[in-house]
């Protein structure tokens, strides 16, 4: 058995709210293999974003383990994490807030590449995600939401990561633009074999993109399995309710 790309073991993440402790992720174990696309669905507040950010060690877990490419990163400090960051990149819901408004797109793409010693021309990175080279000179507010999300995907891809974590990456986009970005993610996956942890509220989107689906509720992973299986024979009552909301 080879080590999976990502392995979570009994992961627990807590927040100290002024009144009580919130256990946002409550004992989640899962694996993502190389080239896998895992979808994470669940109602608002179920812990999806918290889980995603903990995988990238933007949060420190309370207990449990995170293994990225076999290496335990659960307790690594920022300095030790930095060289690993290029292997796991994140794409956020709101593309505008994930770019520095004072940097051109070209600069926003160049900085992380320089930091990680990647020498790839910015126009090539733009071309990978279907943007014209001229966009390098534009500022974030001069791009539409869909164009900016392409740039964000390009920025993540430029570091040749093994894993991209995408949190509601298409839900804020115009409906007529959403299909472009979903097709782009599929193409990128097919060409690069990059793994995806894809968080979404939309079950149709999850079914389109994901090989496996995990269903979260109240911090727990209720079930996880191949997409077709979860859709055809959900193991959990809650999943049935969730799938019952699909309108076809």
């Amino acid at each position, binding site marked *: 058995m080879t080590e999976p790309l990502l392995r979570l073991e009994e992961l627990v993440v807590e927040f100290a709210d002024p009144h009580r402790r919130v256990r946002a992720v409550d004992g989640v174990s899962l694996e993502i293999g190389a080239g896998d696309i895992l979808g994470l669905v669940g109602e608002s507040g179920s812990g999806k974003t918290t889980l995603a950010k903990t995988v990238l060690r933007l949060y420190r877990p309370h207990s449990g383990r995170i293994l990225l490419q076999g290496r335990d990163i659960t307790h690594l400090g920022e300095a030790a994490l930095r060289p690993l960051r290029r292997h796991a990149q994140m794409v956020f819901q709101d593309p505008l807030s994930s770019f520095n408004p004072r940097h051109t797109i070209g600069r926003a793409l160049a900085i992380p590449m320089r930091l990680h010693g990647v020498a790839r021309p910015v126009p090539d990175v733009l071309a990978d995600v279907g943007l014209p080279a001229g966009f390098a000179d534009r500022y974030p507010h001069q791009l539409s939401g869909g164009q900016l999300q392409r740039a964000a995907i390009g920025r993540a891809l430029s570091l040749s990561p093994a894993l991209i974590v995408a949190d509601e990456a298409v839900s804020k986009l*115009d409906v007529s633009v959403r299909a472009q970005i979903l097709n782009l993610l599929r193409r990128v996956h097919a060409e690069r074999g990059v793994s995806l942890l894809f968080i979404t509220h939309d079950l149709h989107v999850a079914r389109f993109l994901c090989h496996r689906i995990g269903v979260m509720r109240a911090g727990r992973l209720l079930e996880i399995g191949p997409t077709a299986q979860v859709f055809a024979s959900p193991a959990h009552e809650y999943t049935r309710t969730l799938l019952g909301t699909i*309108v076809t």
Partner: protein
Amino acid sequence: MTAAGMSAALELRNLRVTLGTVQLVRGVDLDLAPGETLGVIGESGSGKTLTCLSLLRLLPRGMAAQADVLRLKGTDLGGLDEAAFRKLRGRGIAMIFQDPVGAFNPAKRIGWHMRAVLARAASDGAWQRRAAAALSDVGIAEPERVLRRYPHQLSGGMLQRALIAMVATLAPDVIIADEPTTNLDNIIEQQILALFRSLQQRLSSALVFITHDMRVAALVSDRLAVMYAGQIVETGPAEAVLHRPLHPYTQGLIATADALASGAAQLAEIPGQPPSVLDPPAGCAFRPRCASARAGCEAPQALRSPGEARQVRCLLYD
């Protein structure tokens, strides 16, 4: 469109909203029969919210609205002064917002809001009992406890239910719901949609239901109107529009939604992005993205009537 005239719940002709020299809404017509639900579909920035706000005279400062006709149950709203219009707001026409928080006074409990609404509805009996019953009607458990809560103590879904309860209590002739489920997750969204369907049974109000989601619109609407760049580009009976869309833009939206629902390997895409209001393309606003564009499309397009109760703003139907 359907029966206008005296019997119409709402009649709007040629609504234009401007901000300085910028045209944000460019000639929108709406017709609603009593009890009918019109679904308005359009993506972000297409002018849906501004159209609603114009009907309620709630446009942001600096914007101006003009319409050739605006009648609510035969009453010319254009002729009403502010005091007379205020009386109509709530009982004649009421709005449910995407973000319900703004509809509540954060310093007052839910009970205070319900009481104010009940006073307007000229109800009798103990207000607490009636308020609790109204909350219970929209599926709120333990309504007596909820009456003592402040708005920030309720989840988004609960607050949206409370707002719907307030509007339902007033039973207005026309209810405008502007993306009432967009901020909610899948499960809560379905519950709120089910609630709208039960309201349609219970009240005789006409409903304008605004959404950017085809699937949501299909669930609640009798008729659909599709907006693009400040104009309606297609209207018709909901079934007909969903199964036989006429406008290339509507066809694109439905092709994408169908491909997603059927689990296709590749999604039909509409190329490009929606136009900027600051610099809308001359002529048909969809032309830069349209695979059927041809000579003539660079001229402004009027609505054509190619079939029973259907309209489309496209020269393919000449």
